[in-house]
């Protein structure tokens, strides 16, 4: 029979670190998807997966079982990634990256030349454009958007996960959508 998350947590707490393996193996793919969307690249996403599980292990004594282990660990993954992209933004302010801007413009231009949906669907240009659009969001906007759009979390839960007021979480989602629409205008046309 498959061991439940709660059982595994209890075993780790009882002094069996190996029981943590079940939890890592069960949740790592989902955590990767989340950290990839948050960080926008595989290398950082991988780092955040490891960081998330290590942090979860260290803080397991704080896990109170009110939410499921999955919910708790995704919350840790979100906050790890948020920390990382905040630090990344600060570094960018210190040394702005011109290459990023250029790449974005080139992608937009390529897409604008022949924006048929078929050609676009899985093209490298579209991927580049979507990634660039997400890069324009502030760390908080990106986090709120990823949680709302990809994780299907409601505003209320997002505010709890990030420790902000519901109004602030909602506002971040709105700002994110506005910025994404502006960034995707070359393909989607202006907002009506």
């Amino acid at each position, binding site marked *: 029979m498959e061991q439940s998350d709660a059982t595994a947590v209890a075993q780790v707490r009882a002094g069996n670190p190996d029981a943590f393996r079940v939890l890592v193996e069960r949740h790592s793919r989902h955590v990767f998807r989340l950290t990839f969307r948050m960080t926008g690249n*595989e290398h950082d996403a991988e780092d955040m997966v*490891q960081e998330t599980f*290590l942090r979860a292990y260290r*803080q397991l004594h704080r896990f109170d079982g009110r939410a499921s282990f999955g919910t708790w660990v995704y919350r840790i993954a979100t906050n790890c990634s948020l920390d*990382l992209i*905040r630090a990344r933004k600060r570094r960018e302010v210190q040394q702005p990256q011109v290459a990023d801007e250029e790449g974005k413009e080139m992608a937009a231009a390529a897409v604008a030349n022949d924006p048929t949906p078929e050609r676009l669907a899985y093209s490298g240009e579209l991927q580049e454009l*979507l990634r660039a659009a997400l890069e324009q969001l502030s760390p908080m906007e990106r986090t709120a958007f990823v949680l709302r759009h990809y994780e299907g979390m409601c505003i209320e839960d997002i505010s709890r996960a990030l420790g902000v007021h519901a109004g602030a979480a909602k506002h971040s*989602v709105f700002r994110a959508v506005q910025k994404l629409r502006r960034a995707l205008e070359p393909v989607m046309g202006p*907002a009506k």
Partner: protein
Amino acid sequence: MKHLSEDDLVLYYYGERVPGVSAEEHLGSCAACRTSLESLRQTLDAMNSLAVPEPVENYETRVWQRVYPAIEAVEIRRRRWFDWMFGQRKWVLAGAMALIVMGAFMAGRISQKSQLKVAALSGQVRERILMVAVGEHLERSQMILIELANNETKGLVDISEQQVLAEDLVNENRLYRQVALKSGDKSVSNLLDELERVLLDIAHSPSKLDSAEFDDIRRRIEAEGILFKIRVVGSNLKARERGRVRQGQSKSL
């Protein structure tokens, strides 16, 4: 007729409650808002095609293989700490401490037999046990504070391990502070009072700190002058302890 705002449409798209209006009803009767919603939907649906790389086969196992060594390291550190905290000597001390605490707080509420045991500990022995236990407690606290004060990590600082230890120390600290108060040892109880605040600060701060937040913690440790005070009180305790040992030796001669 007031149209739905873009924000209203975003809420509607995600199935959140749109405050103040019945969005469903309005959309049913307003072509302009339906067009706006459609345009929003196209953009947001496009975001769904953001590709996430499919992790390699055996991905889960590989994550575990990478996480495991770090977990082992945490365990080794914890065990070392635990051995130190609860080494044999500590158990003897803890037992004696429990008796003293019971004597101090529960006199009258415990059996006569236990009261006799407590009474059997002379005032000197009691003080000595307290001194040794508090001395060790201060040393452990000092270790964490020094570790934090000397951390040179650039960027994010992870203090989650020190936080786990600080939480343990807070509980211990409370006990010793109460005993020190009862036995009228003002310098010790004042120090423990300050130490408790610093330990609580550490235990309750976020576990990943950026350099500004970390500097803040470090400043708080420094502002209290707590490390200096620990050294002073710690060496006073040691001197008192040495004095006793010498007394004992000369008596036995």
